[in-house]
């Protein structure tokens, strides 16, 4: 079963880390990534670029319009996400709890839709 684990945050939150704390968090994060890549459960870990780099695309009457946005400086936005493939929801939650950020704030765990028939 595949799950997406999401970290939300904003600029203010990132800036609240001291340089030392930030280094520590990165090291803990890298260790997490290595550990679960080795178990074959982590399919990918991705960090989104800053919200200021985000563009919005709308197509109206077949014409795409591209604008800057969505101006989320104060609101929290999806900042990083992980794709895992595990035996059970229980295991997904166990791994999510190992993400360093979960000890600091919280992470969201979303089941991903699949096509295999559900076994009983």
């Amino acid at each position, binding site marked *: 079963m*595949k799950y997406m684990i999401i970290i939300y945050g904003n600029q203010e939150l990132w800036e609240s880390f001291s340089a030392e704390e930030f280094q520590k968090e990165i090291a803990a994060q890298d260790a997490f990534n290595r550990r679960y*890549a080795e178990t074959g459960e982590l*399919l990918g870990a991705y960090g989104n670029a800053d919200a200021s780099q985000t563009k919005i695309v709308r197509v109206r009457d077949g014409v795409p319009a591209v604008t800057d946005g969505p101006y989320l400086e104060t609101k929290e936005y999806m900042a990083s996400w992980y794709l895992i493939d595990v035996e059970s929801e229980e295991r997904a939650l166990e791994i999510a709890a190992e993400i360093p950020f979960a000890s600091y704030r919280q992470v969201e765990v979303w089941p991903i*839709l699949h*096509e*295999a028939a559900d*076994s009983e």
Partner: protein
Amino acid sequence: MTGQRLEDLLRPLAPQVLAALLRRYGQFDGCEDAVQEALLAAAVQWPREGVPDNPYGWLVTVATRRFTDWARSDAARRRREDAELLATPPSMFVAAPADHPPAGEHDDTLTLLFLCCHPSLSPASQVALTLRAVGGLGTAEIARAFLVPEPTMAQRISRAKQTIRKAGARFAPPPPGGRADRLRAVLHVLYLMFNEGYTTSSGDALQRPDLTAEALRLTRLLHRLLPDEPEVAGLLALMLLTEARRDARTRDDGSIVPLDEQDRGRWDRGLIAEGVELVTATLARTRELGPFQLQAAIAAVHDEAPSADETDWPQILALYELLERVAPNPMATLNKAVAVAMVRGAQAGLEIVDGLEADGRMARHHRLHAVRAHLLERAGRPQEARAAFRGAARLATNLPEQRYLRLRAAASGENQGLSGGSR
């Protein structure tokens, strides 16, 4: 020689070649890697140079050479085994078979299946390892089948092999006392493999290998090896009777067609005949009824009905009652609720669903809410049916099923507007 013909030739040989190496050297991980390399070498060389006179002997020789090369390069760590291994010329055991693998081939494949379904492994690892070691699929193909990156799958397979080694598992039949449990594990793995491949979209675009076909091939093989095991026959019959409906199960756009709306002209009569014969013969002489035999019997009743309306529901109900006794399981009870509704009316079925929901184990399972929705629809309560379909859709994690349930939710609203809920 076409790629397909080459595969048909190579893949049945894979477990036999692996067994030959395992009998000699016993190291599952090293032998398995060596066989994979030999299979790759054959896939490259045979189309170019022609198939050797003795494909089995060729593969054993190449795999043995790979294994000894690997063992030599690893000499510092493994000096003792090395000496023993190099003292045994590979020709000693490839000389024995002329054209055919040695007698005992059957037991070898079976022993290999038991090894791949070792209890120290998770079900997902058991499936992956079985596909590779017994099915002869490459890591890249297995990764595509499960929609994960190839390095991820390579990592899983390598860990699974390490786990087997650490558990001290050997290439030997399971102890007599543990055999029944191990066979159940093998059947469960084949069943999971079949379900994994039982996708609604054909997956051509992604070129996923057909796991359903592979599960069928391996289950046929197992049935040939163990013709007197009723649950093996039951599982094979269940797969045949399910596979028979494959083409009718989805529309061209991949959407689900429920059983009662399927075009029965598109069911595969050959597979149905084979499945019915198998399950009938098995039930006639079985001394222990098992869940696969009963599920196959239920599938057979559905497959033999000329139309949905002519389905023999009393018989299906009786079979579900038996299944509930033999292998109590809330999913069996839920399925029984449908049969009860067909025999005694929607309300009787709904009462069983309510009971199951109160029991808690299935309260958050989408199928419980989907069954309730269908029964509410039959009972002429479209408003409630619509809410139940919506609730089911929210709980479903299977994409085609979720789309189907959303469609049904939308449609039950429309029906209500048009016809006031009458059918």
